[in-house]
């Protein structure tokens, strides 16, 4: 799954700590050429030659293939996810060029999911139609809130009305394949305000919603204001209530709560994002993109964690001179791979299945690690966790406190 990254934004949001750049003018042709070249190089390296299953998440692309296959097999790109930054600021031509590169270097099946992240302020119908023509078939819109005061607090460029129009336009072009992002737990937000916002979002949305509790990241304008005491964050209990309300309301409206922050109905899950949580392979393309894949093109059989150079100008220079801007590559040992699988897999409602665990750990079964007396059993007895024929997963209550369960589970895993 390739995840091409468009690192530019028109304006930095007050809560955002992503690797984004606000520049007066982007030399789009140059960035395009580099994205194309890097996608090419990395797909070759991963030997996803025929059918690459790629997702390009503003920051990376994912390949779906059996993670621990003993020898190179022809894989396909299953999804592509254009993330960022604000990839909807790029021209459809750039998106088309990257997709062509993917199809050229690997197999891109007709039905592969191709998602683009979009901001309501850069999504007029013509532009969106252009993306559709380029090959995009799923849209993820950063609505964040449907309240103008909250939007200003977040430093967003759009109003609630503009967000509304953008979502309607997107639904017209990508029916059943438009997702919206919402934030909760904003400074000063009450339980009621959130419930109302949720209500409004339900009326507007298509079949996929991502709900994120606001995380204060170091170095952001919002975090500074909260630390200085000028903005009050809602207390822990209120945040917990907001989350519970959202889960209950969405499930009642027919949504499947398939990941900590993601809800879908009518099967409209994000295949690309699922590939992260299932610890599939994915390739990060573009400044600061992350990837996890086995560089079989180099004869390696080890899964690597890769990060591309952060700063766009430096990244471009590297791509131009050596075909890619990989800044760091770290081989993940078997334990680290299992730790990631556990951490990510338990975020989903399917959890970590026996089959998937077996891909990473053919010798030591899930049952052998967690089915014996220890932390996992205690957590099962307390009602946070389940281990059965489906695999290991969180209960409804357990999912909300997953970060408190994981250290125990990692301790137990490390003992084996």
């Amino acid at each position, binding site marked *: 799954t390739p995840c091409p990254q468009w690192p530019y934004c028109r304006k930095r949001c007050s809560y955002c700590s992503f690797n984004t750049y606000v520049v007066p003018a982007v030399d789009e042709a140059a960035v395009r050429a580099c994205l194309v070249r890097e996608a090419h190089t990395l797909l070759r390296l991963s030997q996803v030659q025929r059918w690459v299953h790629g997702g390009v998440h503003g920051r990376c692309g994912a390949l779906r293939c059996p993670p621990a296959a003993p020898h190179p097999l022809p894989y396909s790109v299953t999804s592509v996810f254009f993330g960022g930054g604000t990839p909807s600021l790029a021209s459809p031509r750039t998106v088309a060029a990257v997709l062509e590169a993917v199809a050229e270097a690997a197999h891109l099946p007709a039905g592969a999911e191709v998602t683009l992240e979009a901001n309501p302020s850069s999504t007029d119908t013509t532009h969106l139609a252009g993306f559709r023509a380029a090959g995009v078939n799923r849209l993820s819109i950063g609505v964040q809130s449907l309240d103008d005061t909250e939007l200003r607090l977040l430093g967003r460029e759009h109003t609630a009305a503009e967000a509304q129009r953008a979502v309607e336009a997107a639904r017209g072009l990508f029916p059943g394949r438009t997702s919206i992002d919402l934030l909760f737990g904003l400074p000063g937000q009450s339980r009621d305000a959130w419930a109302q916002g949720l209500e409004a979002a339900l009326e507007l949305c298509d079949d996929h919603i991502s709900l994120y*509790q606001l995380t204060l990241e170091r170095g952001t304008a919002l975090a500074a204001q909260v630390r200085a005491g000028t903005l009050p964050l809602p207390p822990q209990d209120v945040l917990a209530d907001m989350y519970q309300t959202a889960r209950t309301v969405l499930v009642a409206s027919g949504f499947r709560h398939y990941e900590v922050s993601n809800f879908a109905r009518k099967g409209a899950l994000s295949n690309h994002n699922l590939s992260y949580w299932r610890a599939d392979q994915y390739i990060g393309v573009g400044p600061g*993109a992350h990837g996890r894949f086995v560089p079989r093109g180099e004869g390696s059989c080890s899964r690597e964690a890769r990060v591309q150079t952060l700063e766009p100008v430096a990244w471009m220079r590297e791509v131009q001179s050596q075909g890619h801007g990989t800044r760091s590559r770290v081989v993940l040992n078997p334990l680290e791979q299992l730790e990631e699988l556990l951490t990510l897999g338990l*975020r989903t409602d399917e959890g970590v299945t026996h089959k998937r665990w077996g891909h990473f750990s053919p010798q030591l079964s899930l049952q052998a690690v967690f089915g014996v007396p220890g932390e996992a059993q205690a957590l099962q007895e307390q009602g946070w966790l389940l281990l059965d024929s489906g695999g290991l997963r969180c209960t409804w209550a357990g999912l909300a406190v997953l970060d408190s369960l994981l250290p125990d589970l990692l301790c137990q895993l490390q003992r084996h």
Partner: protein
Amino acid sequence: MAVAGRTAACWARLRSCCPVAAPLCLPPWVPAACERRYSSRGKEKLDMSAYPAESIRNFSIIAHVDHGKSTLADRLLEITGTISKTDRNKQVLDKLQVERERGITVKAQSASLFYNHEGINYLLNLIDTPGHVDFSYEVSRSLSACQGVILVVDANEGIQAQTVANFYLAFEAQLSIIPVINKIDLKNADPERVEKQIEKLFDIPTNECIRISAKQGTNVEKVLQKVIEKIPPPQCNTADPLKALVFDSTFDHYRGVIANVALFGGEIAKGNKIMSAHTQKRYEVNEVGILTPNEQPTNKLYAGQVGYLIAGMKEVTEAQIGDTLFLYKQPVEPLPGFKSAKPMVFAGMYPVDQTEYNNLKSALERLTLNDSSVTVHRDSSLALGAGWRLGFLGLLHMEVFNQRLEQEYNMSVILTAPTVPYKAILSSAKLIKEYGKDEITIINPTQFPDKLSVSEYLEPTVLGTIITPHEYIGKIIALCQDCRGVQKDMVYIDENRVMLKYLFPLNEIVVDFYDALKSLSSGYASFDYEDAGYQAADLVKMDILLNGNPVEELATIIHNDKAYATGKLLCERLKESIPRQLFEIAIQAAIGKKIIARETLKAYRKNVLAKCYGGDITRKMKLLKRQAESKRLMRKIGNVEVPRDAFIRVLKRETDY
């Protein structure tokens, strides 16, 4: 330049008059990082016979903390050429990491200085002393090897509580006292006022004070001259049989025990057979020398001199502080020695993980080799496993010891709440029979006997000295009363400074009295205390429970009147220190079966990172692994996981000195 020139001249004279030493240059000061075992290798030895007793002066510098004792010591070392003059000489004698970090002296150090005055070469032995109240035992130990002291007082702060305490230590030991007013370069320096204080409190005429700036070197030379003029040489004779006082000892992994000695008679050299008056054990001397401040071997040491000896002692207990060494078959009347260190604070120490027991044991053994004032008894508890009960001179001493364990031996431990040594007069015949006596000392709250089998409980008391600007008196008196203090004295030492004397129960001041005093006086009040015996007290044992399970680290013996307030405070602080968990936690204080305070820590209801996709995961994994790692070090009480340092933080919120 003038100073440097004079030092050089002094060296030239020194060399010409002691030919044996001529080819030798004392090694320049080697930083503490350089291990001592190298310092004595391949060097020719000094001949110390050039320094008869009459040209020797043995002295200490005593001062309240931060009044500039270590800076003055640095200057004296520079002026006498013992160390080279650079900007880097800061706290040269404070070798321990913990001393440099905290800016305090914990372990006494010695240095021999050579100084020419009016054509005579003098050997000046400077014995550095710790500056904190906890370490006053080390001070008196150091003074036993001296005939005089330099009493340093800050020209701005004036006389402080430890100045008084240290003065009396020196005064009672009948030492000559040279008052020095330091930091006269400071803007707010008021040496005249300080001179008057000294006159009023210590009865020393104002004209005897030397005004100096140790930082800038002003008048420091004059201090050296006064040392020679005012401090008498040691009264002893090389012709007498050997009589050496062991006043300190350190342990070197390669050479065994290094004993610091002061010779009150005779001489000592390599190959001498010596005997300890205390253990009656025989040794052969391997090496003798002086400290400059690293070990510098010499051919011999003579009466009146101060130095070190190595004689195949394997354990520090063999070099008992205060012991007298003499030549085999030439026994002498042992020197009076001095009171052994008396622990004021006891705490249990346990390995976080019982598999670490043996490692911790050997770390403790090695650390106590260099700090014989810590008492160690094996102990064990149902909850904490096998461990020890340690006795310390005070809370700072306990913290410093713990910090050294961590820094020098990389050990993490569980420390229980500090307790003072209470006593109980038993009334139960059964218990009296069991203990074989009717009065017992309780250094572990778990051994607190029930009221029914006790006729009276006793608590240790101290006589505290507080010196403060008068505007804080109201608040300080309130604090003292709150600590069950009884006022014994109150004197104005000048127009706006007051000295208060209070009798306190030791347990009231042991933990955070000093911090409280400092904070309510904006740092201006100072405090010192001395042992004042026992008094009857209405004591109870208070337990802290987490979800009904007692926290052994926090069991305390406490005065009945204070139980409610302390119980409530401990519960509140615990609530802040224990992280929320997956279930609700009841935090309770109890006396016997009776709950006297309760706080509730609510369960986590949501704790999951909102956003976790491909890009974020490396950071997330690092964080999780750190959490998993720290889980292993958590203390589990029932189901409740408590960070290892939470209890100490609960007992004492501020740790800055």
